[in-house]
């Protein structure tokens, strides 16, 4: 368990203050905040790599606030990998064990194990310079995990990767976390990432922790402008994905079964952009696979656009123009149909 009490850190032009967090053992914990919120420095402060002004850091029932970083049992992975370019991939991964004067055979065994777990066995003899971004990140991950840290700190680990690699790396992270069972603190500015990976999320805003909770809790009751803005820009659901025939996947999201396009099965999350939903007074026979009846439960005007919440359940936030809103004569408690394409659902 990682406990952070009243931590205060000078980030340069502002202070991080009253940082209080408790991260449970084995938990995948996300710290979410806009760029420049001091997320990296907060991680470095936890690691003992950045001086703190006050407060305490506890790692597994031991106060480590004054302890030097090499004695804290932490692993850190940075956005731009930070591999040692004068060492091979194998030597990079073995670095922490060599320092611990581990027996040679033991080192080889552990390096092979961890390389297999993250899927880089074929890269062990390469130099870091010759690897792709995703491969480099896996090496950095293996190097941090091999010392069996009490907590793994990830600093925007996916931000430097292209979209496709990012999604694959997300499942690698989820997989490795499940296999190794290590406690993870992952900082990011990316909501999708936070929702896809986090058991719990802490929102960092204006130098303070604005909110802590599960992704759903955070989105349902956003406590900061930053999250509220995002909450309006996505419909997030979680559900159970299963085979629906014709290569389709159907996901039971509590109340309704939606058609989606994905290879994933079992526990999944889905996101749907409000602007991808059509509201109609009648059911539409069209190419869109999803068409459900619900009741308008909330209306928010934002200049030339209107956010309309339709409750089936669950709730769908839809974005329409003011003109369309007036033509359809939408009011609260009016019965409508929500329509969206299976391909508009992003499953992760």
């Amino acid at each position, binding site marked *: 368990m990682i406990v952070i009490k009243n931590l205060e850190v000078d980030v340069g032009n502002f202070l991080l203050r009253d940082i209080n967090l408790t991260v449970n053992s084995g938990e995948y914990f996300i710290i979410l905040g806009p760029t420049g919120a001091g997320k990296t420095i907060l991680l*470095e402060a936890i*690691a*003992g*790599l950045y001086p703190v002004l006050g407060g305490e850091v506890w790692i597994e029932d031991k106060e480590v606030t004054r302890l*030097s*970083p*090499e004695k*804290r049992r*932490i*692993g*850190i992975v*940075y956005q731009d990998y*930070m591999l*040692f*370019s*004068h060492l091979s991939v194998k030597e990079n991964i073995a*670095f*922490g064990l060599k*320092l*611990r004067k581990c027996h040679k055979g033991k080192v080889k065994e552990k390096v092979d194990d961890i390389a297999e777990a993250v899927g880089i066995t074929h890269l062990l003899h390469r130099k870091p310079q010759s690897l792709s971004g995703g491969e480099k990140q896996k090496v*950095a991950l293996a*190097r*941090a995990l091999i*010392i069996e840290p009490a907590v793994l*700190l990830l600093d925007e680990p996916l931000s430097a990767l292209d979209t496709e690699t990012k999604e694959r790396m997300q499942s690698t992270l989820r997989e490795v976390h499940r296999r190794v069972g290590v406690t993870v603190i992952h900082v990011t500015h990316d909501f999708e990432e936070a929702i896809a990976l986090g058991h719990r999320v802490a929102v960092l805003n204006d130098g303070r922790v604005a909110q802590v909770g599960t992704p759903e809790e955070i989105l349902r009751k956003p406590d900061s402008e930053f999250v509220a803005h995002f909450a309006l820009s996505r419909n997030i659901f979680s559900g159970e994905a299963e085979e629906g025939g014709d290569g389709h996947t159907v996901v039971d999201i509590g109340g309704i079964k939606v058609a989606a396009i994905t290879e994933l099965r079992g526990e999944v999350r889905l996101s749907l952009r409000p602007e991808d939903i059509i509201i109609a007074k009648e059911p539409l026979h069209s190419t869109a696979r999803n068409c459900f009846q619900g009741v308008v439960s909330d209306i928010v005007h934002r200049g030339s656009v209107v956010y309309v919440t339709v409750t089936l359940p669950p709730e769908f936030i839809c974005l329409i123009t003011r003109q369309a809103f007036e033509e359809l004569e939408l009011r609260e408690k009016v019965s409508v149909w929500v329509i969206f394409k299976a391909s508009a659902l992003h499953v992760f």
Partner: protein
Amino acid sequence: MTKAHVWRKPDGMSIVFVLLSVIILLFILAPLVKTVGSSSPGTLWNTLLDEEVYSSILLTVYAAVIATLVGLFLGVPLAYLLARHEFWGKRFLEGLIDVPIVIPHSAAGVALLFVFGSNFFAGGIFHTIGISFFNSVAGVVIAMMFVSIPFLIDSAKEGFKAVDVRLEKVARSLGASPWSSFFRISLPLAWRSIFAGSVMMWARGASEFGAVLILAYYVPFFGHYARVAPILVADRFASFGLEYAQPVTAIVISISLIVFIALRTIAYRGQKA
């Protein structure tokens, strides 16, 4: 399919710049080539066998190597501190390090004598442990070191700056002490710059005239008395004229070039141009 490059007509500025570049390159090259080329190999060989000449060259190479090694030991830590930390007066300190480059080197020699002469503070301390800097190899070494250390410190500093501090942070998180992270990560990654700086320091030290002239003109060296090569060349010219100074000058230039080119090749080996 490869296509020949299509060259557009060269513009006026490129032509003028190339011409000016050729002039300055000839200015550097012509004296070197003419001096080395106008003695027969036989004369050069005989000159090299002259005891005064070879002991002078050995003294110069030896003292410059010692100066560079001491420079590495004392200069690299300072370079690292300057690369890693911001502190009040840092700009001033960085300027101070470059002062030996701008003051006249004879003046540097006099200034060194004021500290390291056996009547003065530092010189007195060393005197009690049997080291004297006046007309001794130790004097040659400190004269060379004083005028050449800025090259090593500046180059090493740039080398350390290019090593991302987060690499050290990762090493620390993996269990490295500050010492271990320095020797296993920072030093190997900055090594190329440190080595290049050492080559510059060695070359600059070996070619030093003014400061050595004041401090250690003629020194006992392995049973002989010797002068450093730049002083030997000047002495032969002053005493016997151009004709007599030419062969020894040719040898000094050749050896300097060979060593310098060899070391630079090692320093930049494996690095893309």
